[in-house]
């Protein structure tokens, strides 16, 4: 069974003046895949992701996301993707319900649809009891689960997760990954950017960016075999050392 | 002591590396003083007026000359009859009409009394008032000149004399106010921001967990601003003397001392604000709403305190700026010394001590 590509990137480059932040990266991501996009701070991850979600114009190269060209159809891309970041997820001063309604609204969901989705979402997370509580009063782990569900509200083809589980307790983190596996299983593509290497272990395939270039791209298992180590952390350390 | 100096050195680095604070420190005072001095003024200049002279005799001629010679008025047109007054106003150019009665000179000599009607455009009541006051005072001056040598026994002429600011220059009123605002702003807002910035950054935690004593941290924060505020005070005074020709009648030394006192008052207010706010943004909001507005509205800087409703008059007593403005006006315009300003000075001093006490009480050596 050959799966279709939902992200296709070819020689994508971004320059800031003389500085090449992203240097001709090429990769594709298949439908339903959990793709890890790794790199140290400043390696160009964030810049690359901004180009893919249509908020930064590439300098050169080609990229298609959810079937749309990043150069010409950035607005269509935004409608077809979800985004969740650990830094900003939900409004602390709104209740869980209000947050869901708000985010459903900005993605153009109708009121009845939002209502229906809200009930389904709360039930799935088992959070009916806190539906009318302020998000700020909830534990971090719950917030993150809600915010992931919220990013799926408009049934996007691809969800971009920016360091989703840093600092979360180990059990909640597993529950979070189970949610990710579930939506991937249903055909949603998951694009995870992170510099936490243990997050990388959960991905189907990972790419590692170093200084604007993709230096490695494969399944975690093959990368570990290739570098003859036990963890992605060590893969990263070896890779960084080789570059230096 | 070395610790303390190291701290102050660091504060200066912060100030000189932040373009925003540099602008507030040095750009604002100059901009404000020029703005208030030139643009926002309630004095009148070259107001165009019309004359309706029914007598056209020697006296009216002299009065008209005197008025047009002053820099406050210029004569736009001469009207021939009452019916044209309204039309003249409606064109919008003129702000007042002087209407001399028939046989002005004759009446003045014969009946010792003659009438001029002053009609002003009261769509802007303040200006209308000012215009009629100015015209009155010109007329009175004229009368005085005329009567110099003659002793008239039967008439009481009210003589209004504008002293201390005989030319009614509003910039003289604004300079003390602007100086107060700027010193308040620089001292209170900048210190409260710089202290809360350390809280936000987390560096305050390290400073607390260091042998540096809390009061050293606070004094270290304050010293650079005393220094910079003094520079500001000097700049403002120089600007007002050289650009606006403002006199400083009293002692410069006393002026300096009182300024230092007020700067310290403002700094302690800044410290107080920083103890109750956790972020730079809150500190800024409190400084603006809690300090700037009262200074502008209730200190007598723009609105005279005597014409405020009683409750506001009472509140105004608690605003340090009010007392400082009185002191400044006293020294700069009236040239009085400490013998007449001791009460205001003492009030400021007491307020400062109170704020210092409160800050020390409020300042936490811990995070809670």
């Amino acid at each position, binding site marked *: 069974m050959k799966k279709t590509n939902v992200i296709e990137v070819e020689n994508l480059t971004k320059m800031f003046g003389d500085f090449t932040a992203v240097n001709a990266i090429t990769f594709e991501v298949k439908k339903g895949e959990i793709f890890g996009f790794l790199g140290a*701070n400043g390696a160009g991850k964030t810049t690359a992701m901004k180009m893919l979600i249509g908020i930064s114009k590439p300098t050169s190269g080609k990229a298609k996301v959810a079937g749309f060209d990043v150069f010409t159809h950035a607005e269509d891309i935004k409608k077809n993707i979800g985004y969740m970041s650990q830094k900003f997820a939900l409004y602390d001063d709104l209740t869980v319900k209000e947050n869901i309604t708000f985010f459903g609204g900005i993605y153009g969901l109708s009121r009845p649809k939002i209502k229906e989705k809200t009930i389904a979402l709360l039930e799935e997370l088992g959070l009916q009891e806190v539906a009318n509580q302020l998000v700020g009063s909830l534990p971090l782990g719950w917030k993150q689960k809600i915010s992931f569900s919220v990013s799926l509200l408009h049934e996007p083809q691809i969800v971009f997760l920016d360091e989703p589980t840093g600092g979360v307790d180990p059990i909640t983190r597993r529950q979070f990954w189970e949610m990710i596996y*579930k939506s991937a299983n249903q055909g949603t593509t998951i694009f995870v950017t992170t510099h936490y290497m243990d997050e990388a272990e959960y991905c189907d395939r990972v790419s590692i960016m170093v200084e604007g270039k993709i230096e490695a791209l494969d399944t975690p298992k093959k990368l570990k075999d290739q570098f003859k180590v036990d963890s992605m952390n060590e893969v990263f350390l070896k890779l960084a050392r080789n570059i230096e | 002591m070395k610790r303390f100096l190291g701290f102050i050195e660091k504060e200066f680095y912060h100030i000189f590396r932040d373009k925003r604070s540099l602008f507030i420190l040095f750009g604002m005072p100059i901009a404000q003083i020029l703005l208030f001095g030139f643009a926002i003024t309630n004095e009148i200049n070259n107001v165009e007026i019309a004359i309706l002279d029914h007598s056209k005799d020697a006296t009216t001629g002299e009065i008209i000359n005197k008025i047009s010679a002053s820099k406050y008025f210029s004569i736009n047109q001469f009207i021939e009859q009452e019916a044209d007054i309204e039309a003249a106003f409606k064109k919008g150019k003129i702000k007042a009409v002087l209407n001399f009665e028939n046989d002005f000179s004759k009446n003045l000599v014969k009946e010792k009394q003659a009438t001029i009607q002053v009609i002003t455009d009261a769509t802007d009541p303040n200006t209308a008032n000012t215009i009629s006051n100015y015209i009155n005072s010109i007329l009175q001056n004229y009368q005085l000149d005329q009567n110099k040598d003659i002793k008239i026994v039967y008439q009481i002429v009210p003589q209004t004399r504008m002293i201390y600011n005989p030319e009614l220059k509003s910039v003289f009123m604004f300079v003390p106010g602007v100086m107060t605002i700027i010193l308040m702003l620089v001292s209170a807002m900048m210190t409260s921001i710089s202290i809360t910035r350390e809280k936000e950054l987390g560096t305050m935690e390290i400073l607390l967990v260091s042998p540096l004593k809390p009061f050293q941290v606070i004094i270290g924060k304050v010293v650079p601003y005393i220094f910079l505020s003094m520079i500001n005070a000097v700049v403002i005074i120089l600007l007002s003397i050289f650009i606006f020709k403002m006199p400083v009648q009293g002692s410069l030394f006393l002026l300096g001392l009182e300024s230092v006192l007020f700067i310290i008052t403002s700094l302690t207010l800044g410290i107080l604000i920083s103890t109750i706010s956790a972020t730079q943004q809150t500190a800024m909001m409190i400084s603006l709403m809690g300090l700037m507005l009262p200074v502008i509205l209730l200190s007598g800087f723009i609105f005279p305190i005597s014409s405020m409703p009683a409750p506001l008059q009472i509140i105004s007593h608690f605003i340090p700026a009010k007392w400082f403005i009185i002191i400044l006006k006293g020294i700069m315009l009236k040239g009085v010394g400490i013998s007449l300003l001791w009460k205001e000075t003492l009030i400021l001093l007491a307020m400062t001590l109170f704020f210092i006490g409160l800050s020390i009480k409020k300042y936490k050596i811990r995070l809670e």
Partner: protein
Amino acid sequence: MSITLQHISKSYKKVEALKDISFEVKENELFGLIGPDGAGKTTLFRILTTLLFADEGTANVAGFDVVKDYKAIRQNVGYMPGKFSLYQDLTVEENLKFFATIFGTTIDENYELIKDIYVQIEPFKNRRAGKLSGGMKQKLALSCALIHKPKVLFLDEPTTGVDPVSRKEFWEMLKRLQQKGITILVSTPYMDEAALCDRIALIQDGKILKIDTPEAIVKHYPKTIYNIGANNMYQLILSLNAYEHSYSVYPFGEFVHYTDQRTNFELNDLKKYLEAENLTGVSIQSTKPTIEDTFMELAK
């Protein structure tokens, strides 16, 4: 004992941040406080660095009481708060010089202690701290915390937000500092860093789950853990959870960590069950427990 805590409790309004915490850190020990965000690590650090009062209990640092002798503690400890608290608008050298001055010392006086760390950032000494990478900020913050030669060093999540290379270097630096006789209390949300400490306390929701050496903690894990892999991760988790004998099922990277309720059982039965659930490429292998497994078991 370098640090002693006895029955420390602390609440903020409604939230109980710390519940009856007691432990000891020995002289010259590298002690790790391991737990997720919100576990109470920062509150604990602030109590020990005299920044907060505990509601109940007593604590000693370097022989001084955290309430009565707070001044003495402030002379004797180094503290690196969660975010690298540096002056962003000062250069590397100015930051270090400033912290040296307020502690009444100079860079030269204690250069020996920070040399290892500082040489790595010295080439950038004229760069503003705000312009440094995460790893360099971390090194500078550590240098600043060490410049007065503290007896006890408190490091609150020093490796959060730092890339793996810098994290590794950072732990190597801590080991070297320990050899110079400094007691170190370090907190981290990363379970994999726990193994680098002499002893660790696992902490969650304000409670200590366990205190021991990393080796002893994993050794006492009560069950055998199996690494189970299959081609469909989500289906694998569902099937394992539905399995009547399953005790715990946790995704763990490319595998699932599975424990069974039974002490002895036939692996083939499980394999058959999974294959009957339409899973392919099923692999089952026993594996060693990690700190994270223990943490989850204790927090369950």
